[in-house]
């Protein structure tokens, strides 16, 4: 392939689609998807903001300025986003709150997708009563109203980052399970699965080495879009007061805190709100673009 590529370069030809590996091809198609690229730039901006920002702006997000003069300060050189009701620097809190929000979004999306994939693989591959039990359980989980139960769970498990992740995973895997099951139902009829059985491969091997990699493309899309959704979810939970607890910041509990001062200091609600909006929009754009890029039938 390298010789061919060099030869093509000499002739000044453009790479044809056959010269790419699968990942290379998806990447190439993604770069031509305008919305996805907009999403990517939004996400790069957010990630830089959240991870590089604190290296430059070294204020403690939980430190309070003593005295009444420190509260509700408008934007100034000392505090570019002002201070909040406890006299804490809003910019520093935005950095650390973003880290928490992103971490919860990523961790819960990946875990819930994996959990869903396992359930879907087992249900789809074995079929029969295993499929029936697992899928009816999935249906049952989908019909539980989340928020009332959440409030109940918060009183049992306590409140915090890990508890939020747990809750999002427990209530978030069902859609992925259905997705994977559907895929597996069609994939397992493929001849390469039969070939694997003819070789004597175990069910585990077939599921993880043959079926799972072929669902990966769809799962990556689902995870990407899931991250955005889960950040919103975290914000909602925190907004209700059952999420990340003070003094630690998350974009969600910054919003919650700010709602009392919405008329006096609207910026306290605008900054975290805008950050959540941008992140979620970025992940949704990127996820949509990824979905288009892996669909070989779409010309991009």
């Amino acid at each position, binding site marked *: 392939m390298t010789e061919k590529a060099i030869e093509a370069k000499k002739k000044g030809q453009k790479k044809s689609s056959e010269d790419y590996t699968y990942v290379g091809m998806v990447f190439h198609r993604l770069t031509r998807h305008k919305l996805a690229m907009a999403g990517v730039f939004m996400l790069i901006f957010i990630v830089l903001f959240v991870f590089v920002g604190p290296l430059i702006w070294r204020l403690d997000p939980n430190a309070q300025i003593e005295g009444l003069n420190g509260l509700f300060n408008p934007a100034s050189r000392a505090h570019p986003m002002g201070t909040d009701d406890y006299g804490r620097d809003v910019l520093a809190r935005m950095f650390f709150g973003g880290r928490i929000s992103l971490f919860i979004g990523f961790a819960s999306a990946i875990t819930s997708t994996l959990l869903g994939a396992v359930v879907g693989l087992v249900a789809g591959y074995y079929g029969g009563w295993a499929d029936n039990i697992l899928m009816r359980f999935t249906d049952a989980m989908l019909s539980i109203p989340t928020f009332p139960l959440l409030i109940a769970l918060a009183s049992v498990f306590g409140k915090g980052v890990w508890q939020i992740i747990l809750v999002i995973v427990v209530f978030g895997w069902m859609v992925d399970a259905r997705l994977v099951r559907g895929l597996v139902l069609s994939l397992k009829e*493929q*001849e390469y699965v*039969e070939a694997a*059985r*003819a*070789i*004597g*491969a175990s069910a585990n091997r077939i599921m993880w080495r*043959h079926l799972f990699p072929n669902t990966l493309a769809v799962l990556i899309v689902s995870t990407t879009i899931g991250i955005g959704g889960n950040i919103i979810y975290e914000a909602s939970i925190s907004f209700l007061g059952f999420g990340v607890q003070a003094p630690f910041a998350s974009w969600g509990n910054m919003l919650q805190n700010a709602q009392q001062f919405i008329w006096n200091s609207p910026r306290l609600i605008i900054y975290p709100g805008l950050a959540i909006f941008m992140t979620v929009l970025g992940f949704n754009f990127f996820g949509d673009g990824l979905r288009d890029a892996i669909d070989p039938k779409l010309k991009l």
Partner: protein
Amino acid sequence: MATRLVEVQKLKKWFPIKGGVFSTTVASVKAVDEVSFFINQGETLSLVGESGSGKTTAGRTLLKLLQPTSGKIIYKGKDITKLTPNQMRPLRRNMQIMFQDPYGSLNPRMPVGDIIQEPLDVHGIGTRKERKQAVATMMETVGLRSEYEKRYPHEFSGGQRQRIGVARALIINPELLVLDEPISALDVSIQSQIINLLQELQQRLNLTYLFIAHDLAVVRHMSDRVAVMYLGKIVETAENDELFDHPLHPYTQALLSAVPVPDPEVKRERIILQGDIPSPVNPPSGCHFRTRCPYAMPICKEQEPLVIEVAPGHTVACHLLTKK
């Protein structure tokens, strides 16, 4: 006397059709219906017949990729019909299959080297280094450059993919190889390459083939013995030349008359069968072929013809011959 490698007795594979409120079995697709044949060590038995005659199902049931409804599969004198998938696993080393579809039979997410190596991994043969070496050797054997092992299946042509399929099947040194229409999805020029490769490998590795095909010219070229299937039944079995020179069953005769002869001077009588192959859900009573047979008699409707041996190794199931 050649030794029998595998023998199938009254093999039956019915696929239930579920229906009704309680998904009870309302009917069955009788894909393979009491089929008996054997394959000797080192020979090629061809299974021919038109689409829907059950030849592929017969091949897969033989390998126990499908659980037979009834009947017996005897491999090297051992009844393997009732073995569980776990008990079958060590036997899978000896019996392999090569598939028809060069696109569907290779996992698109696996590099070719891994695909070929997988049987070794599954059966835990050799060290990691030995496996890699075996893969490289096998790739060269089937005519692929071993540098290609990191590539993915979509980077290969149909013929190359079939070579990969052969390599995967042969890397664990099987004795029996079921070739499930290995060439019908390929271009004619590539077909001959694959056929020659298969023949060469058979001689070199002393392989036994069950060759499932509908291309009669290739069948004549490849096989030692031929079995003709129609609607789930074997209607005629004979040595290669015997079958092609003296076909006795009307269906075999019709089938052979459809083979084009590369000589415009030759005038032959074409037997053109009327209608389609009947549904295997509800096959005709008596002889399955009677609805399309030019010689159908009243008895064909009432009785199923018995398999009779008309010459050594030549068996036919037809009332025309029973009467004599």
